[in-house]
C-alpha cells in the first residue's frame, strides 16, 4: 500500500475517532435535564425577592419528558409556561417565596421525621392557606429539601378519592391540587442540591429508582449567584 493511501487511512481513522469522542463527550455533557432556569428577581425595599412557582405531578407526560410515567417537579417561567427544569438560578442574600402546587397523591415518607418543616421563616409553611409546622408524614406526597441550607418542607398529597385529578404535566390549576407556600432566605453563593425524600418511584424496590435519582425529576440544584 502506498504511503499516501496509508496516511489517508490514518487520518480518516483519527477523524472518525475524534468525531466519536466528540459525540460521546457532547452527549454526556448536554443532559437536557440539567439546563438551568434563571428565576426572575424583583427588588422590594432594596431587598432582592424571588417568586418561585413550582408544581409536582404524578406523571411528567410525553410532552415535556422522555419518561412520561415518572413523577416530576416543574417550574413556572415568567410568562406562565411550565418548564421541566429542576436547576434554578437564584440570587444570593435574597428572600425566596416558594409556591408549590401539588397534583400528586400521597405515598408517605420513608423517614417520618422528615414530615417536620425546617429552614423556612418560622419553620412553617402555608398548607392550603393554613400555617403549620409539620404534616402527617404518611400523607406526604413529595418533599422539597435542601440539606445544605437546612430546608425541609413536605408537600401534602391529594387525597386518592379527589375529583378531577390531573393526568400528565403540565397540570392546570383547575385540577385537584394542594397549595403549599413557604419562604426561605439565601445567603452565601453556591451550588446547592435539593431533592425529594419521599420514595414514590413505583416499580423500583423501595421506590427509590428512576425519577428519584434523576436531575430534572425529583432532584435538582439551586445555583445561588452573587
Amino acid at each position, binding site marked *: 500500500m502506498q*504511503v499516501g493511501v*496509508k*496516511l489517508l487511512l*490514518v487520518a480518516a481513522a483519527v477523524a472518525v475517532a475524534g468525531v466519536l*469522542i466528540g459525540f*460521546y*463527550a457532547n*452527549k*454526556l*455533557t448536554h*443532559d437536557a*435535564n*440539567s439546563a438551568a432556569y434563571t428565576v426572575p428577581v424583583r427588588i422590594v425595599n432594596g431587598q432582592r425577592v424571588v417568586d418561585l412557582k413550582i408544581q409536582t405531578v404524578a406523571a411528567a407526560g410525553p410532552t415535556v419528558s422522555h*419518561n412520561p*410515567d*415518572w413523577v416530576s417537579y416543574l417550574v413556572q417561567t415568567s410568562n406562565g409556561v411550565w418548564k421541566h427544569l429542576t436547576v434554578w438560578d437564584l440570587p444570593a442574600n435574597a428572600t425566596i417565596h416558594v409556591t408549590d402546587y401539588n397534583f400528586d397523591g400521597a405515598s408517605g415518607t420513608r423517614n417520618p421525621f422528615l414530615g417536620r418543616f425546617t429552614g423556612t421563616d418560622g419553620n412553617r409553611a402555608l398548607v392550603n392557606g393554613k400555617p403549620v409546622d409539620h404534616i402527617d408524614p404518611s400523607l406526604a406526597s413529595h418533599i422539597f429539601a435542601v440539606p445544605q441550607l437546612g430546608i425541609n418542607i413536605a408537600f401534602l398529597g391529594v387525597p386518592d378519592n379527589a375529583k378531577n385529578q390531573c393526568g400528565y404535566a403540565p397540570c392546570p390549576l383547575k385540577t385537584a391540587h394542594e397549595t403549599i407556600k413557604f419562604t426561605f432566605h439565601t445567603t452565601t453563593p*453556591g*451550588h446547592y442540591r435539593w431533592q425529594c425524600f419521599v420514595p414514590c*418511584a*413505583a*416499580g*423500583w*424496590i*423501595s421506590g*427509590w*429508582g*428512576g425519577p*428519584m*435519582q*434523576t*436531575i430534572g425529576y425529583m*432532584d435538582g440544584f439551586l445555583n445561588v449567584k452573587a
Partner: protein
Amino acid sequence: MTAVTAPLRPPIWRRLVGFNLLTGIVLGIGGWYVGWFGAHAVVGPSLDYFGDVDYNELSVFMAYIGGVVGFLIGLGFLNYPARRLLGYPPSLREKETGGWARYFGLCTDHKVVGIQYLWGIGLFFFIGGLNAMLIRFELLRPTHQVFSGGTYLTLVGMHGTMMMGMMSSGILGPFANYLVPIMIGARRMAFPRVEALTFWLLMAAGAILTTTIFFGGFPTGWTGYEPLNVQAAAGMDCYILFFALAGISMTLLGLNMIATIVTMRAPGLTWMRLPIFVWGVLSTASLMVLAAPVLIAVLSMSALDRAAQTTFFSASGGGSNYLYENLFWVFGHPEVYILALPGFAIVLELLPVFARKPLWGYRLAVAGLLGVTLLSWMVWQHHLFVSGINGDLRPFYMLSTELISIPTGFTFICGLMTLWRGQIRFTVPMLFCLAWFFNFLLGGLSGVFLSDVPSDVTTHGSFFSMAHFHYTIMGGLVFTFFAAIYYWVPKMTGWQLNETLGKIHFWTMFVFFNSTFAPLFAIGFLNQPRRVNVYAHTLQFLNDWVSVSAFCLGTSMLIFLFNLVWSLAFVKKPAVANPWASRSIEFQLPSPVPVHNFDRIPVFSSDPYGYGEGPVPQWVPAGAPAGRD
C-alpha cells in the same frame, strides 16, 4: 505458449460474504431485535410483574443475549459443532492463512488470537482511559458540575468496569496466547476454537458496556453493590452482561491455559525449566478459572433481583447486602491478583534478558507466584473491614493480608538480585520493568496501611485506596503491559518500534503517572471519599494538580499510539529475529513467527536463563520428533 496468470482474487463483496466480523455484527444486531421483541411478545404488556416502569428488564437482557448469540453465529462459532453433528471428521484449524482478513473472524492460530486481543484490549483500554480523562475534567472544580450527577457516576463506573474487565485478560489475552505455546514447544493451544471464542466474547462484552449510556447508565461504580444496583435504570443490565460475558471469557481462557501448560509441554521441559512467564500465566489462569464463576453467579443473582423481583440482596425481602459484598469480593480479590500476577511474571521474565544474568532464585520466584495465588483466596474481607462484619474476623483478615506481602516480596528479591552485578541495558522494555519496582512498591506499602484496620478506618472508601490500587494495577500491570508490547511486538510483527519515541513515552508516562496518583494518597487522607463529584474547597489545588497530570498522562498514551502507527504502518523497519539477544525460545525463531511455530518440536535441556553459562542451547537437535499438531 499461454502466459501464466496469477489466480484471480474474488471481488471484494464476495470476500466480505462469509462467517466473519461483518456477518457477526449484522447477525448480532438482528439477534438483538429478536431478543427484544421476542421478550416483549412472551412477557406482554404486563410490566408490573417485572416491576420496572420504564423497561421490561427481561427485554433488555434477552436483547443483548440474542445479540451476542447472533454475533457468535455470524463469526462462525457454530459451524464446527454443526459439522461434527452432521458427521464430518474433526479438524483443528480454521482460516489460519488468508492475510489480514483472518484477524477479523474466527481464526484458530493462537498467534492471530494474541494479536486480535492486543488490538481489542487496546481499543477498550483507550475508551476506559477517555472516561478517566472526563472524570478528572469534572474534578477540576470542587462544586461546579460539567456532567449531571448520574452521568458522572456512569463515567466512573464505566472507567472502572471497562478497565477491570478488559485488563484482567490484558496480559494473558495478547501475550500468553501468542507466547505460551511457543515457550512450551507446542504448535497450538489445547483448545484453539475456545481460544478464539474467549476473544470475541470479550469484544461483545466491551461493545455492550459502551451502550450503557443509551439506557441511562449505572450508578454503582464497578463494584455493582446491592441494593443500589436494584434501583438503577436499565443501563445496569449492560454492566451485568459485560461482566458475565467477560467472566465466561476469563474462565475459558484460564481453562485453556492450564490445559495447554499441563499437557502440551515439549520433551525435556520439566516444571523447573519452565519460563517464569509461563508460571505466572499458570497461576493467573488458576485464579481466573476459580474466581470468575463466582462473579457470574453473583451477577446472575443481581439480574434476578432486578428483573424478577427476587430479594437475594435486599433486607426488606429477607435478603442481605452482605451476601452480595462477600460474593463479589470473593471474586474481587483474586481478580486483582489476576491483574497483578502477570505483571510479576513479565518483570521476572524480562529482567534476565536486560541484566544478562539468570533469573535469581527461580524456585523462590515460583514459590512467590504460587504463594500469592493461594493467599489471594484468604484475604477478601479486607475490603469489608468497616462494613459491619463480625469483629472476630478482622484480626484474621488483617493477618492474612499482611502475610500476602511475603510471597510478593519474593518477586522483589528475585528481581532485584537479578540486577545485582548484572550488565544492565536500559532499553524501553527494561525501563517499564524497572518502573514496576518503584510503582508496585508504593502500591504495596500503601496496601500495608490499608490492611491495618485502625488505619483503614480513615482510608477505606477514600482516594487513598484509589491511589493504592492505581499504583498496583496501573503502575504494576499497565507498565508491564507496555513493557511486553515493546519487547514482543518486533517478534510478533517483524518490525521495530521506534526506540526514541518509546523512551519519550516511558518517561512522560512514568513522571505523569506518579504526579497523578501520588497526591491522591494525601487527598484520601484529607477526607475526600471515592466517586464524588463535589469536594471541599481546600482540596482544589491538589485535585487540579492531579487532573492536569492526568491529562498529560493521557497525552503520553497518544505518543505511544503515534509510535505504534508510525513504526508499524509507515516506517516498517524490519526487526532482526533476536533484537534483545534473548535466550528465550521465541527469539530463536524468525519474526514474525511462522504459522506452525517450529519446523520440528524442540527438545528442552534447560531453562531460558543461562546467561553467563554458555552458548544458547540448540533446542531442535537433528533427531527431534517432527511432532503432531
